[in-house]
């Protein structure tokens, strides 16, 4: 790995979230300074800030892009108890367009939450234009824009009370499965039960239903992420808690036919594919690469670790990133912690390089 470039983000405080658009050529950043900035990749491969505006009256926790089929659309959520939908408009503000700046208009202000909105995510494209938010008081809300050509009309479709303070959510991107959401809670009380809940939309009763609670995870969860599904027969969920967990969810039976069992819920076989405590501290962020084959986890040890499975589905740390100021023991093998008797570091499939590649960024290969 190598640092290709470092951009001075010009935020007045630390950045909370970075989000790439669908094609990876636009980037949005948000910060405690209550602003969002949009960056565009120029033809010569540099990131150029094309918009920066104050979005909320509190820290902006997350920013996320909608699918480009819906236009250039962002959603953000904030401590100020709101989530907002933004659309880029062309040619409305002449003064700003002159300097290669674009103009973003607030299309919706979602004010239903009574506490800080901790996460916001657009649903998968095949579901139309849906937006899920979750908040510190434990409510998950699903909004929908019924007319995708009109972004100013959003209706609150569903409210789910998870009964636990929510910190994060993730849509299952799979087109083959019913709409599914995973919600994580940062409630620190282990006796409050499992901190990751899985909800599924039941088309027959038109309601979101809780289908699973991951009882194995009782510590505070800071971030969760479903992996993109490229032909896998199961769903893969990464969880950032006091360690990194990778969970597989395999649907045991197809949704029963509507007539026989209108309230039927999917059943899952849940397995822990991996558990890594190399961060030896809280893990705050998990992020999949676009094919869902490599996971990046960021922890309090000041390290970003990359995990990859070989073709036998054994996961292993293949690379570590850290700041030059932090003192870290980067080594350490996987403990193979696994409660299901599955092997974790099976196979001697070396990921490290036999010799130095002159820092040219030759990656460790792990097959």
């Amino acid at each position, binding site marked *: 790995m190598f640092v290709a470039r470092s*951009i001075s983000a010009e935020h007045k405080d630390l950045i909370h979230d970075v989000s790439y658009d*669908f094609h990876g050529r636009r980037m949005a*950043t948000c910060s405690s300074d209550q602003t969002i900035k949009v960056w565009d990749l120029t033809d010569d491969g540099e990131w150029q800030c094309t918009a920066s505006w104050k979005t909320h009256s509190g*820290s902006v926790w997350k920013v996320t892009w909608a699918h480009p089929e819906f236009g250039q659309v962002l959603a953000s959520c904030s401590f100020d108890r709101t989530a907002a939908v933004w659309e880029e408009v062309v040619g409305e503000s002449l003064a700003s367009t002159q300097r290669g700046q674009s103009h973003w208009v607030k299309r919706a202000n979602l004010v239903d939450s009574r506490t800080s909105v901790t996460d916001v995510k657009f649903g998968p494209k095949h579901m139309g234009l849906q937006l899920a938010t979750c908040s510190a008081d434990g409510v998950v809300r699903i909004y929908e824009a019924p007319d995708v050509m009109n972004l100013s009309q959003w209706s609150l479709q569903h409210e789910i009370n998870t009964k636990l303070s929510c910190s994060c959510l993730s849509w299952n991107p799979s087109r083959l499965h019913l709409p599914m959401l995973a919600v994580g809670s940062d409630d620190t009380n282990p006796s409050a039960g499992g901190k990751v809940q899985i909800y599924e939309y039941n088309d027959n009763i038109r309601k979101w239903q809780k289908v699973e609670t991951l009882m194995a995870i009782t510590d505070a969860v800071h971030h969760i992420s479903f992996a993109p599904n490229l032909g896998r027969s199961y769903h893969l969920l990464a969880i950032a808690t006091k360690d990194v967990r990778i969970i597989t969810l395999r649907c045991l039976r197809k949704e029963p036919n509507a007539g026989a069992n209108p309230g039927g819920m999917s059943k899952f076989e849940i397995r822990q594919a991996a558990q890594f405590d190399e961060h030896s501290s809280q893990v705050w962020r998990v992020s999949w690469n676009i094919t869902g084959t490599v996971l990046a986890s960021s922890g309090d040890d000041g390290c970003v670790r990359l995990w990859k499975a070989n073709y036998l589905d054994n996961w292993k740390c293949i690379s570590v990133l850290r700041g030059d100021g932090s003192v870290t023991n980067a*080594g350490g093998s996987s403990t193979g912690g696994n409660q299901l008797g599955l092997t974790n570091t099976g196979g001697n*499939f070396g*990921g490290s390089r036999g010799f130095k590649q002159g820092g*040219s960024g030759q990656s460790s*290969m792990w097959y």
Partner: protein
Amino acid sequence: MVGILYVDPHISHEAVRYPTKMAANGMEEDFDDGEQPEITTISDPHLRMGISARWGAGNQLAVHAALHPPQEGVTSGIRESPRVHEVRWGTQEVNNPIIRKLINETHGTFVALQHHQPDTTSTTSNRKPQLSNFSRKYRSVIRACLMQLKQAEEAARDDVTAEEYGLQVEIYSMVELIWSLCEILFVESLPGGVVLAQLLDWVKWHFNEADGYAREATTSDTPHLHDSYWSAIYLYVLQGRGDEARKLLSLDPTRSMDVYDEYASIDELLRKMPFFTLYTGQSLAEFDMKWRHWQDECRRRYSEGEFNTNKNLETICRILCGDEDVFLELKDLTETWYRMLVSKLLYCNPTVKAFDLQYHVKACIDAYDGHATLGPLDNILLAAIEFDLHQVIKESSSLLGNWWFVAHLADLLFQCGQLESHSLNYGSNLREFLLLDYASSLMSHPSLWQVGASYLDYCPEFGRYYLEFYLERLPLQTEQKALKVLRECEKRDMKDISHSICKVMGVRALRNERLGSALSWALRSKDASFATFLADRFLSEYSSKGGFSSLDLLDNLGTAMVLSDRLTFLGKYREFHRLHEEWEFKSAANLLLQLLTNRMAPKKFWLTLLTDALPLLESEEVIFSTQQTYELMNCLEDISLSFRSSAYLHGDQPGDAQLKPTKGQQEVEKQKLDLIRLALARNLARAILSEGSLE
């Protein structure tokens, strides 16, 4: 000097544990190899507070400092602007033009290999020659690439570039060495499994210091006294190159013809040395007999002390006799265990079978300080000799950090049927796994994605999913790029992806107020609802501006207009305007009437249509017949009635609420209605008159 392979000192000095042998069934013991992940450091003082990373497209991560947990009102107190670090993961070498050439050229071979028809009626021995042709094709591309890399290294203007190319030269030299050994062992068909001739060629091809030594010696004034003279001769003999050795030997002037000529004796032995060559019709037993006979002769001459007086010739004779000690003495010349192995086998066991090679390895490795000193390259070659393909691929991926090599090698071995027989039932998965990684590394490259797509076509299990995923995400900077991606989708019948790409392009065009372009994207993907939306936009543009844009497109909709009713109406309505402009009043009038009577026109547009009829009603010639006028009057009454209804006032659909007419507009519309009513009445009168007078 070409072809000399230097083993990187990092490799040989690094203590690499000799890999545990796989169990007989190929299932490995589970153990942690203790290998450390690569560590990359980012220079940013803010990162001390905390770190957070997010994947972007391709193999890149955005890394930034973060405060955990995120809390309101707790400021980090940073003075400088926070930074976002873009960290890349993956090979950079695709940016090297020479490597890119390799990627493009081997792509063709790969595709041909996938389509090669193994002659099902024949045995495996018949399909192998074909496969070794493919292997040689790959190897010739590697060789060409290596030569270019070497030239580039020599021509490099600065040290950094030279070092980069030097590194690539090193990698591809190893690739070539490993590939050709694998070709001999796994791909080529060897009658009776006798491999020595091939192994000799392998050593000759890759290690030709002997020629260098010979050149040094012969170009000096007194070749036979030159330091390299005997080294060259020994190496020639060790590599089984008798003729070259004899030529050099003949240069020694100290040779005394008058007394007993030991030179002539060794010359004779070298000349008569039998070789087992393929395709000469010689049987193995025949060769074996000849060989024994010849070696007995060598031993006889040696034991009779024919070469006692000349230590150098004695050494040669000892080599010919297959004296084990002499190989140890010459280990500095053979340099590596595998070269010693080949030389030793040549004289000790020339009919060795490929599968038995591994039993001769240990002594040679021990001669070079044993297994503990083996580097990664040694381990790969060793694994190949042990027919442990799995290990070859595994070690190669970690040593070379090169997706190209392992992906192509695994595929070739799979095609040879070697992956199934040697590495369990997941052979095809391993191949696909490596191909997916290789293709993924190409998909994020701006000019190699089509090559990557082609590789994904040959991954039966996950290829299509990957391809759909990547194609949908390719950046569409220009329309040309979008069309190119669309062609790839259409080739593979990926309707959902083409649809999505067209929609993205259409929405982008719409945002830039290019309605015509947006509509053509909608037509391309046959997106009816988007086409309806755009047709409405065209109509409202006409209502507000009194004209159409993108006339070219609208005039040439043809059968495409049946995609949606609204679009059909738009097309027909535009046709009406065109007829009108072309003074085809009669046809224009018919069309207009048709649009109204078959209810194709949206109700809210009727008034506009009737207003359009005004000039036709007022023209000198009578255009609308009485019958037609009655029908127009019907329509007029229809909207006059609905004029008061909420459906008209609030638009056809609830979404059109904003089109609700104001008081002023309503007034104007009422005047219009009166005007039309008058015109219709007058036309009716004229039509009755003219129709009556005709009769």
